[in-house]
C-alpha cells in the first residue's frame, strides 16, 4: 500500500494542557491513551483479586478470606477483567489506531467519544461501591454471584440495583464506543481505501463493533429483567409465575457468547498486523481472513446454549448447539492456518511484538482446542463448571485477548511515544510471562478433569498439588506485569528516537506519520492507491 500524504504538523498542535486536556478532550489519541491507562489500572485491580483467589486456594482450608468474600473476589475478578480491562483495552487501541490506519483526522463523533470513555470510571465506581457498603469489608458485600450473575442467586443479593445500573452504564459506554467505531470505519476512510484494502485490525473491529451493538442491549434487557424481578414483582425468572430461571441464562448467554468473540476478534486483527510485519511477507489469505471473521461473528449468535448443556434442555436443543458450536472451529482454523502460512517462508525476526503474536497463535489454539472438547455435550457434562473450563477460558482470554493487547502495545508504543523501549526489559517481561502463565493455567486442566468444581473457596486434599502450581504461577505472572508498567513509563520519558516506520517490514498508513504521531494527523486525507 503506497500513499501520498501531506502532513502539516505545528499548526494544529495547540491543545489544552493539564487536567482539562484529559477531562474535556475530543482527540482520539488522548481518548485512546485514557482508555489504555484505565484498562491497565483495572487489570491490576482485577489481577489483585485473582491473586487473593490464588492465595486462598494455595492449600486446603480457609486461611485468608471467608467463603462469601471469596465468591466476591471471583465475581469481581471476572467482571473487572472483562468489562474493565479487556474491553476498554481494545477500545483504547481502536481509538488510537483506527483513524491512523484508515487515514482519518479523528473519530467520526469526537465528543461522544469522550463521553464513552468518561462513563467508564463512573461505571467502575458503581460496580465496586457495594464492596464498601456493609458493616465489615471482610463480610463480602460486593457482588458475589459470579460474573454470570445467574438468577435466582443474584436475586438474593441485597445491593442488586447498584450492580444492575453499573452494567447499564458499561453498556451505554460500549454501545456509544461501537457506534463511533463503525461510523469512523464506514465514513472516514481516506480516498482509495476500499473496504477490502482495510487493514485487518480495522476489519475485525468493524465486525466487533457490530457484535457490540447487537448484544450489549440484550445484556441491558437481561439486567433490567433482574431489576424488575427483584424490586417490582415481575416473574421472568420465577417458575411459580410462569417464568424460568433458565430463561435468564438464555438471555445472558445470547449476550455472553458473542461477548467472548468481542474479546478475541480485535486480537485476531492485531496478530494479523504483527505477523506480516515481522515475517516481511504479505498476510496470507487476506480475503479469507475477512470472511472467516464474519463467519465467526455470525456463528457466535447461534451457539450460546453451549454454556447450558447441564440445565436440562431438550435433546434436540443440545444437539443443535453442539453442532453449531463445533462449526466455529472451521473459520477459526482458517485464521490459524493463514497465520502459519504467513510465517511460512517468510524472513522472520523476533522483536517483542512478534514474540507475543507467536505465543498468541500457539496458546490461543490450545484454548480453542479445549473449547472444542467442551462443545462435545456428553463430555461437557463432565467438564462443565470445573476448572477445565477455567483453564479453557484463561487460555483464550489471558493468552488470547490479553496477549493480543500486550502485543499491540509493544507494536505501536514507539508510534505513540516516539521512543523505542528497552528490548531487554521487554524480553524479560515476555519470557517470565510465558512461563508463568502456563504454570498458572495448564495445571487447571488437570484439576478440572479430576473433578474440582470452579468457584470453590476450599477443596478436598486430592486437588492440592495442581492448585499450588497454579498459585505460584499466578504470583509470578502477576508481578511480571509490573515490568510492562515500568517499560511503558520509561518509554514515555525517553529513549532512542523511533523512526516513522519503526519496524523494518511495517506497512500501512500509521507508519507514514512521524513518531510520535502528531496530535492531529491526516488533516488532509492521504490518497491510498
Amino acid at each position, binding site marked *: 500500500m503506497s500513499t501520498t500524504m501531506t502532513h502539516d504538523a505545528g499548526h494544529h498542535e495547540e491543545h489544552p494542557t493539564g487536567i482539562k486536556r484529559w477531562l474535556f478532550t475530543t482527540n482520539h489519541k488522548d481518548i485512546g491513551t485514557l482508555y489504555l491507562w484505565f484498562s491497565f489500572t483495572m487489570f491490576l485491580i482485577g489481577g489483585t483479586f485473582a491473586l487473593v483467589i490464588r492465595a486462598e486456594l494455595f492449600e486446603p482450608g480457609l486461611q485468608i478470606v471467608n467463603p462469601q468474600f471469596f465468591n466476591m473476589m471471583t465475581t469481581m475478578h471476572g467482571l473487572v477483567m472483562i468489562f474493565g480491562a479487556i474491553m476498554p483495552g481494545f477500545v483504547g487501541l481502536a481509538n488510537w489506531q483506527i483513524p491512523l490506519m484508515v487515514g482519518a483526522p479523528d473519530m467520526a463523533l469526537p465528543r461522544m467519544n469522550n463521553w464513552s470513555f468518561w462513563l467508564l470510571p463512573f461505571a467502575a465506581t458503581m460496580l465496586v*461501591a457495594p464492596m464498601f457498603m456493609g458493616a465489615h469489608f471482610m463480610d463480602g458485600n460486593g457482588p458475589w454471584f459470579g460474573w454470570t450473575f445467574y438468577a435466582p442467586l443474584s436475586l438474593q443479593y441485597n445491593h442488586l440495583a447498584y450492580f444492575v*445500573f453499573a452494567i447499564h452504564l458499561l453498556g451505554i459506554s460500549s*454501545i456509544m464506543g*461501537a457506534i463511533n467505531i463503525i461510523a469512523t470505519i464506514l465514513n472516514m476512510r481516506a480516498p482509495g481505501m476500499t473496504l477490502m484494502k482495510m487493514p485487518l485490525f480495522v476489519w475485525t473491529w468493524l465486525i466487533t463493533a457490530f457484535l457490540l451493538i447487537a448484544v450489549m442491549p440484550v445484556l441491558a*434487557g437481561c439486567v433490567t429483567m433482574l431489576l*424488575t424481578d427483584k424490586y417490582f414483582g415481575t416473574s421472568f425468572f420465577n417458575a411459580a409465575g410462569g417464568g424460568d430461571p433458565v430463561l435468564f441464562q438464555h438471555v445472558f448467554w445470547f449476550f455472553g457468547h458473542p461477548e467472548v468473540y468481542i474479546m478475541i476478534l480485535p486480537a485476531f486483527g492485531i496478530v494479523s498486523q504483527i505477523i506480516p510485519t515481522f515475517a516481511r511477507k504479505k498476510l496470507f489469505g487476506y480475503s479469507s481472513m475477512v470472511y472467516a471473521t464474519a463467519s465467526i461473528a455470525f456463528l457466535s449468535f447461534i451457539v450460546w446454549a453451549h454454556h447450558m448443556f447441564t440445565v436440562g434442555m431438550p435433546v434436540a436443543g443440545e444437539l443443535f448447539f453442539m453442532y453449531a458450536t463445533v462449526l466455529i472451529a472451521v473459520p477459526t482454523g482458517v485464521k490459524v492456518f493463514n497465520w502459519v502460512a504467513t510465517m511460512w517462508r517468510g524472513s522472520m525476526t523476533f522483536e517483542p511484538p512478534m514474540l507475543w503474536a507467536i505465543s498468541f497463535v500457539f496458546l490461543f489454539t490450545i484454548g480453542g482446542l479445549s473449547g472444542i472438547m467442551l462443545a462435545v455435550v456428553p463430555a461437557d457434562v463432565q467438564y462443565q463448571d470445573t476448572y477445565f473450563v477455567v483453564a479453557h477460558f484463561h487460555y483464550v482470554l489471558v493468552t488470547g485477548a490479553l496477549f493480543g493487547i500486550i502485543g499491540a502495545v509493544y507494536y505501536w508504543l514507539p508510534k505513540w511515544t516516539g521512543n523505542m523501549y528497552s528490548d531487554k526489559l521487554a524480553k524479560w517481561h515476555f519470557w517470565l510471562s510465558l512461563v508463568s502463565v502456563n504454570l498458572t493455567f495448564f495445571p487447571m486442566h488437570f484439576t478440572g478433569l479430576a473433578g474440582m468444581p470452579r468457584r470453590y473457596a476450599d477443596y478436598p486434599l486430592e486437588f492440592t498439588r495442581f492448585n499450588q502450581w497454579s498459585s505460584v504461577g499466578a504470583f509470578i505472572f502477576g508481578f511480571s506485569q509490573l515490568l510492562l508498567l515500568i517499560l511503558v513509563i520509561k518509554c514515555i520519558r525517553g529513549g532512542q528516537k523511533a523512526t516513522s516506520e519503526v519496524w523494518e517490514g511495517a506497512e500501512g498508513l500509521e507508519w507514514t506519520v512521524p513518531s510520535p504521531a502528531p496530535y492531529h494527523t491526516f488533516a488532509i486525507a492521504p490518497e491510498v492507491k
Partner: protein
Amino acid sequence: MSESHGGYYLPQPSYWPLVGSVGLFLALGGFAHFLVDHGSPLWMISGFVILAIMMFGWFGTVIHESGSGAYNAQVDRSFRMGMAWFIFSEVMFFAAFFGALFYMRIFAEPWLGGASNNFFTHQWLYPDYVAHWPSNGPGTVGGKFGQMPAWGLPAINTLILLSSGVTVTWAHWGLKKNNRGQLILGLFMTVALGALFVGLQAFEYHHAYTELNLKLSTGAYGSTFFMLTGFHGLHVTIGAIMLLVVLLRSVKGHFSPHHHFAFEAAAWYWHFVDVVWLGLFIFVYWLA
C-alpha cells in the same frame, strides 16, 4: 470557534460529556440508593436534572455549529450512521424482551404443563396446572386477572400510531418542498397523535390495574405485557419529545430542504417506535 480539518469538523474540547457522565451516575446511582437503601430520591432527581441540562447544552452547541455551517456532508453522514446504529441497538433491546415473551409462551408454559422433557416437573410440582396463555403461572402469581383484549383501545392505538407515521412523512414532504406550513402542521399532528397514544395507554393501564387486576406483578403475562408496552410507551414519549423539539425548531426556521438531520433522526426514531408497536400489537395483544 470551529476548527476544520480538511473539511471534517472536529469539535473543541467539551465539558458536556463529563457533565453527562455525572448526571447519569447520579440518576442511576440515586435510583439504586432509593431502591436498595430506601434513600432519598433527591439524588436521582438531581441526576436527571443534570442530564436535561447536559442535553440542552450539548444539542445547543451542535445546533449552533450546524447553523454556522461547520458541518459538511461527511459530518452529516456520521450523524446519520450514529442515529441508525443507535436505533439498531434499541431494536436489540426490545428483542431481549420479545425473546423472553416467546420463550415463556413457547417453552416455559408448556413445560410447566408437562411437555417435552418436563413430565416430572408437571407431575411433581404442579399436578393441577394446565398450560395456557395468557398465564400467571402455576402459582397464579398476582391472583386471577383479566386479559387485555386486542380489538378495543389497542386497535385504536394502532391506528393512531400508523397515522402519525403518515403525518410525519407528510411533514417531511413539506420540508423538502420548503413548505413550512405543511411541515409545522404535519409535525404538530404527529406530536398530538403521539400524546394521544400515550394518554390512551395510561388509560388502558388504569383499566388493567383497577378493573382487570392485571399488574406488573401478574406472573409471566403481567411481566411481559407491562415491560414491553411500558418500554414502548417510554420510547413513544421520548420520540414525541424529540419531535416536539424539532417542531419548535421548525417554527424558528432552523431547517432547510437539504439540511435537516435532526428532523430525519426524529422521524426515523418515530418509525422505529411504530414498527415495534406493530410487533407488540400482534404478539402481545392479538395472538395472546
